[in-house]
């Protein structure tokens, strides 16, 4: 039961990742691509936490935290660059 639910959740997250990746490739303006990048990083945080759950290793949660910090800084820097104020 639990294994089936975890597999279903992984499938849904994979489909969400592919949809956001499609917007990342196709997006007409650079701001669309930055939004798609933001969504991709948030989905990736969920994915890393799910990998930590399946692997049973708590050290991967630190990886998710640092990944979220770096992706937040990256989105802020790209947004400042789009404003031409960097």
């Amino acid at each position: 039961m639990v294994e089936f639910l975890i597999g279903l959740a992984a499938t849904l997250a994979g489909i969400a990742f592919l949809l956001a990746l499609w917007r990342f490739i196709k997006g007409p303006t650079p701001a669309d691509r930055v939004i798609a990048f933001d969504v991709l990083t948030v989905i990736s945080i969920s994915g890393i936490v799910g990998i930590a759950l399946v692997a049973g290793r708590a050290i991967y949660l630190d990886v998710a935290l640092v990944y979220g910090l770096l992706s937040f800084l990256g989105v802020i820097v790209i947004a400042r660059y789009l404003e031409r104020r960097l």
Partner: protein
Amino acid sequence: MGSLYDVIGGLFLVAGTSFLLLGSLGLVRMPDIYNRIQAGTKATTLGTLLTLLGVAFLQPAWSLKLLLIGIFLIFTNPLSSQILARAAHRSGQGRLPASQVDRLAEDFGDES
């Protein structure tokens, strides 16, 4: 832990990833850049928080670190979406021809 906590955690996982899927679907289907920000950040924030809650039900020993990640997401995700919306407005990209009212440009005059 008991089997009931496992089933509740699995249901929270499925609910959270469903919200992630809905957010990505809105990111693909919405016509305007501001609608995409709306769909792509709020729904994924809720989805990630529900996923973290589900993992906390499945592994109760990890609750403190998952709570730390959740608080970090609550602080940073609306901030990045607001800065993205401001950057899109100031760079003048992505306005639909059908959108007629622009209160921010009325407030600040001809910005950049």
